[in-house]
C-alpha cells in the first residue's frame, strides 16, 4: 500500500514537473518569437504556482521588452531575492535602472553601510544562516580547545580562530536577520505610476513635496489607510499605495 502511494506521488510530481517545464519552454519560444506580452503572462502564471528565480528573470526580460520598466525592475528584484548570485539578473537590473528618470543620491548614506548592505545582498538568508551555524560550531570547538588545552600553542591558535569564527558567525547571523526582516516586512517598493507627486501629508490636498518617476525604488516607512510614507534618498513624503508595488 505504501509503495503504491509512493509510486502515485512520484508520478504526479513527474507530471506536474513535465507540465510546468512545457509551459516554460512554450514561454521561452514565445519570447524568442518576439511575442513578449504572451510570454510574460505565461511566466506570470508559472510564478503563481511555483516562484523561481529563473522564471522571474525571464519575466523581467519580457516586461522590459514591452517597455514596462517598473514591472521589469520588480521581477528582477524578486529574482535576485531568490538567487542573489545571478550575474545576468544583476546586469539586467542595473541596465533597467539606468533607464529610470530619477537619479537618487543619498548624501546621508554612510559608505560602510552601503558596502555592508551590498555584502549582505550577495547571498540568500538561508546561505547566511548556514554560514553562521558552521562558523559557530567551529567557534565552540576552538573555544573548548582554548579552554581545555594545557598546551600554550594550541591555546593561542585556538583563541585566535575562536575570535575570528565568532565575528564571522555573528556577522552572518546579523546579515540573515536583516534579510529576514527585509523579506517579512517588505519595506522596499518600486514606483509603478509614470509620475507621482509625494505629499507632505496623507491627504490629496497636502502640499506637494517632490516628484517621483516610474521604476524608482523607495522604502516604505509607514502606512496609513491607502497612503504610505516613503523615503527615497534624502526625501520623505506620502504617496498612494496604489502608485507603488512592494518587492
Amino acid at each position, binding site marked *: 500500500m505504501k509503495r503504491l502511494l509512493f509510486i502515485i506521488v512520484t508520478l504526479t510530481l513527474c507530471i506536474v514537473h513535465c507540465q510546468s517545464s512545457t509551459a516554460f519552454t512554450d514561454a*521561452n519560444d514565445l519570447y524568442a518569437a518576439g511575442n513578449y506580452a504572451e510570454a510574460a503572462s505565461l511566466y506570470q502564471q508559472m510564478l503563481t504556482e*511555483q516562484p523561481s528565480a529563473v*522564471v522571474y*528573470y525571464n519575466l523581467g526580460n519580457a516586461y522590459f521588452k514591452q*517597455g514596462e520598466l517598473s514591472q521589469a525592475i520588480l521581477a528582477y528584484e524578486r529574482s535576485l531575492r531568490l538567487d542573489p548570485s545571478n550575474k545576468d539578473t544583476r546586469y539586467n537590473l542595473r541596465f533597467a535602472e539606468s533607464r529610470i528618470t530619477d537619479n537618487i543620491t543619498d548624501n546621508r548614506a554612510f559608505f560602510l553601510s552601503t558596502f555592508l548592505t551590498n555584502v549582505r545582498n550577495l547571498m540568500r538568508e538561508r546561505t547566511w*544562516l548556514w554560514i553562521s551555524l558552521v562558523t*559557530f560550531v567551529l567557534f565552540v570547538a576552538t573555544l573548548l580547545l582554548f579552554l581545555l588545552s594545557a598546551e600554550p600553542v594550541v591555546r593561542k591558535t585556538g583563541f585566535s580562530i575562536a575570535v575570528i569564527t565568532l565575528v564571522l558567525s555573528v556577522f552572518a547571523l546579523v546579515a540573515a536577520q536583516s534579510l529576514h526582516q527585509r*523579506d517579512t516586512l517588505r519595506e522596499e517598493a518600486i514606483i509603478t505610476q509614470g509620475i507621482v507627486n509625494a505629499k507632505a501629508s496623507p491627504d490629496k490636498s497636502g502640499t506637494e513635496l517632490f516628484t517621483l518617476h516610474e521604476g524608482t525604488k523607495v522604502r516604505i516607512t509607514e502606512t496609513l489607510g491607502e497612503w504610505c510614507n516613503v523615503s527615497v534618498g534624502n526625501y520623505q513624503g506620502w504617496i498612494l499605495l496604489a502608485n507603488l508595488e512592494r518587492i
Partner: protein
Amino acid sequence: MKRFLLILTLCIVYGASCIVFADDVVFRAEAPSKVIAGKPFQLTYSVNQRARDLEAPDFNGFEFLAGPYTSQSSSTSFVNGRRTSSFSLTYTFTLMGLDAGTFTIGPATITADGQRYTSNGVRITVLPPDEEPQQTRSATSSGQSGTSGDSGTSATSKSAGSDIFVRAIVSKTNVYEQEALQLSYRLYVAGVDFAQMGNTVKLPECTGFLKQELELGDRQFELEHYNNRNYQAVTLVSYLLYPQHSGDIQIDPAQFEAILRVQTRAQARSIFDDFFGTYENVSRMLNAPAITVHVKDLPAGKPSSYSGGVGHFTLTPSISTTNIKANEAVTLTLNIQGAGNMKLLKTPSIDWPEGFEPYDPKVTNNYKMSGSGYSGSKTIEYLAIPREAGTYTIPSVAFSYFDISEGKYKTLTTPEYTLNVQRAAGQSGNAEEGAQTYTAVNKENIKELGTDIRYINTSEPTPDSPTHQLTGSPVHQFPGSPKVILLIDLVMLLLSFIIYLLHRKFARENADQTHVRYKRANKVAQKRLKAAQQLLSGDNQLFYAEIEKAAFSYVSDRLRIPTADLTKDNIAELLHQKGIADELIQQVNEVLSTAEFARYAPTTGAEKQALYDATANIINQLESQKI
C-alpha cells in the same frame, strides 16, 4: 422638434405658393387685443373660400351691438402667364366690452366645400374706461409716482384732454450687485395727435452700470391703462443694466423730443382751409425723471471658487474618455447653463495632474439677451495631453455663483475623474531605441554596437527551489529563520560551558588529590620504611613490597604522576626537569630497579639492609632537594 419645424415651413411655403389651387381653407378670427370698456370694437371672421353657415360663439362678457356684416372680395391676376386669384369673405361683428378684465371668445365654425371649419379663439383684455381727470393728477405726474414704488413718471400735460409724457420704468429698484435690471422709456399718448419722435434725444449715461441695449422688435402703439386713463403707449428704448458697485445709484433724467400735430387756430383763409383744416407740427420736449436704484452688496463669505456669476446656473461636466493612451488628447467639457451675467463669468481653472500638458480652454458662448438678462449656455472645453502612463485623478472643479432667488452663494462641483493612461503604442519599441543611447566607449578591439539586456535563461528551473516570502507560503526548511540559528548557538554555548565547568571541576579535584598526596609523601614513605625496618629480619616478600611501595609512591606523589604512569624513563626526565643532580637520579633509578627486581627474586639479609639504607637515603635526599 426640428422635423416638425421643417414640415411646418414646407407647409407654409406650399400653401403660400398654391393657395388657389390647393383646397386649403383658412378661417381666422381677428380682434384687437386690448379694448376699452364701453367702447365698441370689431371682431372679424375671414375665410378664403366660399363658405356659408357661420356659427358665431357666445360673446360672453361683451355686448353684441351689430352684425354680422358680410363683405366679399376677389381678385385675379396674370403674372408671366400664370393666373393667380384670391378670394376673401369677411364677417364683421361689432361688440362692446362691459367690465374690465380679460375675456376669451371661443372659436366659430363655418361650412366650406361641404366641410365644417373651426376658427381660432381670441383673447381680449378689456381696460377700464377713462375716469374724469382730477386735480391730483398734475401733482403726481410732475414727480415720481411713489405709490407704485417701482416706476417713475414724468408727464407734460397741458390739459386733462390731451396728455403726452415719457415714463422711465425700471424692472427692479432693489437689486444685488451684478443682478440684471431692465430700464425702459415708454411714451404715453392720449388726446393729442402724435406725429413722430423728434431727433433730439438725451439719454442718461447710466454710470455705475454695465449697459446693454435691448433689441426692440416691432414698435407699435398699444393701449395701456395707466393712472386711471387709457393711453396709446409705446416703448422707445430699453436697456439691460448690470450694477457694478453697491449703494444707491442714480440714473440721470432723460429727454425726448416729440412732434405733435396741432390744428392752427389761425383764421381760415378760405372755405377749403376751414373744411380740411390746417395742421402744424409742434415740437415738445418730454422729460423722464431721474431714478435711483438701490444696489445691495453681495453678502460676505464668497467661496474661493467664486466666478463672479450672479443669477442661476447649472453645471454639466463631461469627459471625452477615461481610458486613453499616452500622448492622446483628453477633453473635459463644462457646460454652464442658466440665466444671469453670463458674459462676466470667469472660466474655472483645472488643476491637471503632473505629467499632463494642458492647453488653453476653448469657450463657446450660446446665450441670448432678454429682459431679465442673459440666458443660455456657455461651454468650456479643456484639452490636455497626458505624456506618461499611469492612473491619474483629475481633481473636481468648483464653480460658485450667487443665487439671487435664494440670496446665497452656491457652489457647483464636477466629480473627480480617474484617468487610466496606457502606454503609447510606440513607447514599447523605445526600449531598444533608448538603449542605443547607452553605447559605451570603444575599447581596443571590441566594437560595441549597442547595449541590451541579457537574454532569458532557458535552463529548466529546479523544481525544489525554495518557496519565498513573495508567494506568502514559505517552505519550512532547516534553518528557517535567524532565531533558530541563534537558539542553536545558545545551546551550543551552554553545552560548551557545561563541558568547561565539568572539566574544571574534575581538574580541580584531581589537583587537590595529588596535592594532598604530595604533602603527605614523606610521611607515608617514612611509615613504609618503618614497617620495612621491622621486616628486615622477617618475610622477604613483604619487606620488598614495602620498600618498593615506599620508593614508588614517594616519587609518584612528589612528581604528581599517577603510579600507573611511572616508568624509569619519565621519572628520570621529570627529575631532570626539576633540576635534580644526575647522580641522585642514578641512585633513585637503582633503588627502584633493585626493589622491583628483589621483590620477585628474594635475596639475603645484608642486601635487604643495604636496600633499606639506600631507599631511606634517596628519600631523605629528595626531601632535602624539595622537589
